[in-house]
């Protein structure tokens, strides 16, 4: 049963990734594109974790943590640049 649930979750998050990509292309403002990128990072972390469940290996944790950190820093840097005109003042 867990195989089907895992496939369902993977399909859901993959579909979400495509919808995020749509918003990334469509987005009227830059802030919408930044939000779409942030959501893409979240979906990719979920896909990595689910792939780790599927393979049964424990090495996917580091990749998920790296994605979380770089996603957060990237989004905050984008927002800071849009707000203030420079990333580090």
């Amino acid at each position, binding site marked *: 049963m867990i195989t089907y649930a895992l496939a*369902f979750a993977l399909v859901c*998050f993959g579909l979400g990734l495509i919808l995020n990509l749509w918003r990334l292309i469509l987005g009227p403002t830059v*802030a919408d594109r*930044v939000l779409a990128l942030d959501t893409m990072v979240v979906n990719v972390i*979920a896909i990595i974790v689910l792939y780790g469940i599927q393979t049964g290996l424990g090495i996917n*944790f580091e990749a998920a943590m790296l994605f*979380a950190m770089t996603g957060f820093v990237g989004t905050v840097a984008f927002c800071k640049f849009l*707000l203030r005109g420079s990333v580090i003042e």
Partner: protein
Amino acid sequence: MTFALDIILSILLVVGGLFGLTGSYGLIRLKDRMQRLHAPTKASTVGLGTALLASMFHGLMIGTGFSWQEILVMVFIFVTAPITANYLSKVHLQSRHFDGQIPKTGVSRDWSTFDDAPEGPEPQLPQRDS
């Protein structure tokens, strides 16, 4: 035991997938820029949280024990998601401010996000005579 674990894992995975899909669908579906900020936060808390919980419980199922390291990712995401949302809403507010869509505050000061008053001169230490 294994069957109960199987049920729990399946429920967690299905709920996480549904919430993740809902968050990404809301990003497309909602009209306003500020509304669009609302949907992906559900995907990042419930969707990713249940996926990480399923990963933690899966360690019990395959016999490697409860894997605690996913808590790190969960805590990091739960702490940083509101900060990201706050920054993005500030960007939205700033861009709408220039369109003149924000109502007036009714007092002499502007909204605190836009209150970018120029700083005064540097405070000087009092002069001491020798």
